[in-house]
């Protein structure tokens, strides 16, 4: 069994309620921080822990905290990003639904560290029942004196509220989230200025993911150094992985960074192997935005080293032969999955979720979706494959926010590793028409039709 930090207590009956959570050591980090540590000492602990943002970008949390503008004297805010919408990711919901007080405890301790007296949790609109759970938990915490004026008699005040979104993936981008929190359209802002200087209502703001904030109580209770001992290299601590697709045990798992992908995939403690006896075909290890890995690059890197569940190992080989840990959305495909259809599906997602503010993303995502749809439905042209590569390269890096990159990478990776499958779609349209998501014939069986080696 690997170390559990976030999900340690999740199976205790009644842990959703304040009483049980408190009886099991809940809110001790607030006591410790407010009574024995200065805000800067809390920030130092978090820096020492080496924890990196769990929302997908992997930016060191302590560094993000240290950027917040304390000199201007403006009010500071902490905003929790609970707008979990990356396809393949459902870990934050699990935390908030089953152990809501952990996030609230993390919010109080973190707000104290940042000197914020007003904080928000921005949750996606579709998680309406989780919103209600959090509202209830906040009311309980407030009734018990953990929120409001003069918390624990230390003179520290904090108000914490949940804000509900309205259905937009883009609001997971921190500046779009802030716009949405201000009651506007979720258009990402142009940076700089960064939220640490000018965020919510123009004031210094830190936006952190649910999982990141939920790790703060443990770090404060056990020290940043203890956290940094867990994991491997610069990937410290534990990570929640949301596993889905053609596997035996889909769900949310807490793993120690550095676990091998092979063990995670096949051990009964985790995914338990494939759900059928079909072979593994591909893996998206970090949510739909990250490059897909073909079977031969999943367990081993291109250098024939074991592939591990860590920021570094998953991105080993760059985009040519690697991928990214991203948000930990682990999607597993067996050989019935059609890569072209999957790529079209992801493209449709980004087309649907583009905010429409900047040109390359607004126009490019729709264009890619239309081409992929044509290829998938049997009216693709040979030149469409290179056209797709060209379009994605024109979007990548040229947009206001990372959604453009997120839309471009999966297309590039799918063509890079599965080009033959695209060619098959173009050359044998009659064979790929009238199918649902699964392939009548796994690609391995028809591969010879497009193989250059056949005469």
């Amino acid at each position, binding site marked *: 069994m690997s170390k559990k930090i976030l999900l340690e207590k999740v199976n205790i009956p009644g842990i959703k309620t304040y009483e049980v959570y408190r009886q099991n050591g809940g809110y001790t980090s607030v006591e410790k921080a407010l009574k024995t540590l200065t805000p800067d000492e809390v920030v130092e602990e978090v820096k020492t822990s080496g924890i990196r943002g769990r929302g997908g970008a992997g930016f060191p949390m302590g560094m993000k905290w240290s950027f917040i503008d304390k000199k201007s004297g403006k009010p500071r805010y902490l905003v929790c990003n609970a707008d979990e919408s990356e396809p393949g990711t459902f870990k934050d919901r699990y935390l908030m639904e089953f152990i809501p007080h952990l996030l609230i405890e993390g919010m109080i301790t973190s707000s104290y560290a940042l000197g914020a007296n007003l904080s928000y949790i921005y949750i996606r609109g*579709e998680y309406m029942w989780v919103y209600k759970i959090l509202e209830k938990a906040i009311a309980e915490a407030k009734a018990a004196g953990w929120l409001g004026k003069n918390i624990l008699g230390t003179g520290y005040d904090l108000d914490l509220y949940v804000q509900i979104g*309205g259905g937009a993936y883009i609001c997971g981008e921190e500046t779009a989230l802030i716009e949405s929190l201000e009651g506007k359209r979720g258009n990402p802002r142009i940076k700089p200025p960064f939220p640490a200087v000018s965020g919510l209502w123009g004031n210094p703001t830190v936006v952190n993911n649910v999982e990141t904030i939920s790790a703060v109580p443990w770090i404060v209770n056990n020290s940043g150094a203890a956290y940094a001992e867990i994991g491997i290299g610069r990937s410290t601590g534990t990570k929640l992985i*949301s596993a889905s697709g*053609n596997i035996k045990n*889909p769900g*949310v798992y807490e793993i120690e960074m550095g676990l091998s992908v092979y063990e995670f995939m096949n051990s009964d403690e985790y995914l338990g192997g494939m759900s059928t006896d079909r072979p593994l075909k591909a893996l998206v290890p970090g949510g739909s935005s990250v490059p897909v890995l073909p079977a031969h690059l999943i367990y081993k890197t291109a250098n024939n080293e074991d592939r591990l569940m860590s920021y570094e190992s998953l991105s080993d080989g760059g985009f040519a032969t690697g991928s990214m840990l991203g948000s930990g959305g682990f999607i597993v495909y067996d050989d019935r999955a059609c890569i072209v259809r999957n790529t079209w599906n992801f493209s449709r997602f980004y087309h649907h979720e583009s905010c429409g503010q900047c040109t390359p993303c607004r126009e490019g995502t729709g264009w890619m979706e239309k081409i992929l749809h044509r290829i998938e439905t049997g009216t693709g042209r040979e030149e469409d494959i290179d056209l797709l590569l060209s379009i994605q390269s024109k979007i990548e890096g040229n947009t206001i926010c990372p959604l453009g990159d997120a839309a471009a990478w999966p297309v590039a990776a799918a063509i890079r590793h599965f080009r033959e499958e695209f060619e098959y779609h173009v050359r044998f349209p009659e064979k790929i028409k009238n199918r649902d998501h699964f392939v009548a014939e796994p690609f391995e069986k028809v591969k010879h039709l497009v193989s250059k080696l056949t005469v």
Partner: protein
Amino acid sequence: MEKSQIKQNINITEALTTRINELISHYPDDKRKSALLPVLHEVQDAHDNWLSIELQDKVAEILHILPVEVYEVVTFYTMFNQRPIGKYMFEFCHTSPCCLNGTENLMDYTCNKLGVKVGEPTADGMFEVRGVECLGACGYAPMMQLGDFYQEHLTEAKIDQLITDCKDNKIILHDK
């Protein structure tokens, strides 16, 4: 721009006003506009799940903002409906991880069973089937959202049961 000409009865009840005022109190006094999204959810839930222009104007009035600021937001987010929708809206997640577990076939099944196409309510206004993007339940696929809740690990038998339960008025859409 999808607009509905159907007249909507607007009724901002006392309970609703109390809730709206509570939501507004979550923000600094001069930042009333920030309450827009939560207020729209509350108002929509209390008005048959859709927001007519008149109702949006009412929200603008409550929050002291311009009507166009409400229209901009309502049209941006997918959860706000600008026309009457089926009372029981089956919103299937049709993003890839769910599709790997057969969502597309299940949507076809549901549509056939109800005799509708995706995006069209049944003649009696009871049901509607929609495909939506990732709902964050990939490990529990196939799944759909019904009201404020998720229905997960769906099968054809479960769909049949849900339809029966809806007809028997056994399904709670909003937890108020």
